[in-house]
């Protein structure tokens, strides 16, 4: 424990996530686990631009939805394995990210937030009228697997480990990013854009790169979702609540922190599962009232989320040890 203090929480976490399905092998617990991983992936992806760069997107569902539609659209049109659609989702998301980033990042952060929510709504409504993507009904994947490449499994277990791998890749990427020039630039832009520019930081370009990276991973999260469920419609792809979930999970855990979204998902997903189980269908509305309340409380009292709260109450020595 003393030899590798910085590593041990990571190792513990990795081990816990790896053996979770072996201990909780029931379908219900496995489903919760998969939901948790997907939420953690989406929120971690949001975190790159919303947390690290401090550019608060409230319409990230647009990337999630594009990623979710692409695989099932490829299947519908050409009969390909849904997996083949993932790159198309990424490409569309990157294009959209650039399209939004270029005009809004020249202005204050409010414009970006407004643009994201407006564009997400625009796409949601448009997809609801567009016959090619199934309009309001949406799209479906292969009902039964034609082979392993369709990634259509009866058990949740394979999905669990696929999602876990993607999460590990994303978090490793974020870890490296934090230590790279790019990560320093993001943090500098977040707290002092004017000062960052005066030091030669290409602010506009750095923000766009952050948005593009974030959009790519969010798109992958969307693809994973639709490949697993084999179904997507405008609401589950582009709905405002998809965006809300990413924001709240990242902000609750700690926006701009490596493990922030993971901590947020660890709290929120079981909470959400519990309310849905206890209150049945009627609980959904209640869940979102609670979400709204939590978001307001975070904004008002602790924008740094649980991570910052923990740093404040934890002993000084622990903090210093983990400071850099």
């Amino acid at each position: 424990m003393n030899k590798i203090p910085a590593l041990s929480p990571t190792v513990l976490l990795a081990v816990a996530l790896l053996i979770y399905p072996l201990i909780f092998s029931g379908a219900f617990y496995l489903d919760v686990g998969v939901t948790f991983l997907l939420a953690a992936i989406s929120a971690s992806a949001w975190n790159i631009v919303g947390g690290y760069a401090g550019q608060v997107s409230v319409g990230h569902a647009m990337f999630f939805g594009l990623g979710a539609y692409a695989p099932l659209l490829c299947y519908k049109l050409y009969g390909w394995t849904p997996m083949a659609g993932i790159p198309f989702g990424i490409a569309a998301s990157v294009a959209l990210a650039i399209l939004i980033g270029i005009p809004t990042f020249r202005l204050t952060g409010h414009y970006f937030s407004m643009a994201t929510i407006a564009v997400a709504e625009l796409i949601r409504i448009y997809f609801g009228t567009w016959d090619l993507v199934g309009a309001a009904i949406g799209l479906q994947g292969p009902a039964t697997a034609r082979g392993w490449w369709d990634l259509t499994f009866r058990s949740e277990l394979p999905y669990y480990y696929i999602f876990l791998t993607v999460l590990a890749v994303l978090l490793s990427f974020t870890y490296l990013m934090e230590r790279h020039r790019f990560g320093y630039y993001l943090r500098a832009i977040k707290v002092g854009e004017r000062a960052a520019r005066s030091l030669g930081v290409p602010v506009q370009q750095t923000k766009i790169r952050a948005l593009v990276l974030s959009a790519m991973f969010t798109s992958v999260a969307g693809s994973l979702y639709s490949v697993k469920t084999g179904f997507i419609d405008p609401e589950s792809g582009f709905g405002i609540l998809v965006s809300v979930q990413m924001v709240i999970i990242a902000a609750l855990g700690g926006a701009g922190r490596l493990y922030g979204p993971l901590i947020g998902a660890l709290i929120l997903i079981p909470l959400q599962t519990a309310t849905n189980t206890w209150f049945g269908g009627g609980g959904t509305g209640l869940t979102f009232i609670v979400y709204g309340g939590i978001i307001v409380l975070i904004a008002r009292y602790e924008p740094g989320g649980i991570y910052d709260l923990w740093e404040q109450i934890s002993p000084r020595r622990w903090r210093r040890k983990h400071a850099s």
Partner: protein
Amino acid sequence: MLLEAHAVSKSFGDFFAVRDANLSVGEGEIVGLIGPNGAGKSTFFNCLAGDAVPTSGKIIFDGQDMTKAPPEAHARLGIGRTFQVPATFEGMSVIDNVMVGAFLRHPHQGDARDHASRIIELTGLKAQMDLAAHSLGTPGRKRLEIARVLATNPRLMLLDESLAGLTPTELQEAIRLVRKIHEMGITIVIVEHIMEVIMTLAGRVLAFNQGHVIASGRPEDVVKDEAVIEAYLGRGSHRVRRRSA
């Protein structure tokens, strides 16, 4: 000439904050900009730093036209600046702050860290290296700003009241630091309120009043200039209050 400003004007609507200001700074000089509050020296300074685009006129740095270049281009070409109100990156540690500057010439993290460490030693911030920037007081943050700029390897440093609001001892230390930077071969343009600082540091001074350059030359001559005395006398009481505060 390292830096030249020709007939630079900056207006906001009908109001001219700076009108036809000329300045040429040779390599290795320390030039001071003085003047009462609202005289236009800060606006002029921001034009030099690329933070404001002049309404008319030209700014040439090392033979290149910088008039419309953005701040980041200024940094790349070797013009660094500090801010009147220190704009340190609050949540980040002192070393990380300096590293943001160091990354400009050292893209790799290890090199940037080494370079930043050297700068931190040079500027006397070593003891506070791992502290968060916001835990430093105003003098510390002003020093950190200078360190951060220094890490970008500038040829010209623009200091915006980097020595204001310091106690006499802190002031002496800060003056020593500016001298040290100057000895490294870096040209300096400094905006200051406090006459004494300018007198000890600058080789040449430009005095501003109501957007115009009203006098320029050796500091000891400029302070004797009638127009300058008049500009300052009107605000005399102002200045005393500011210094005692």
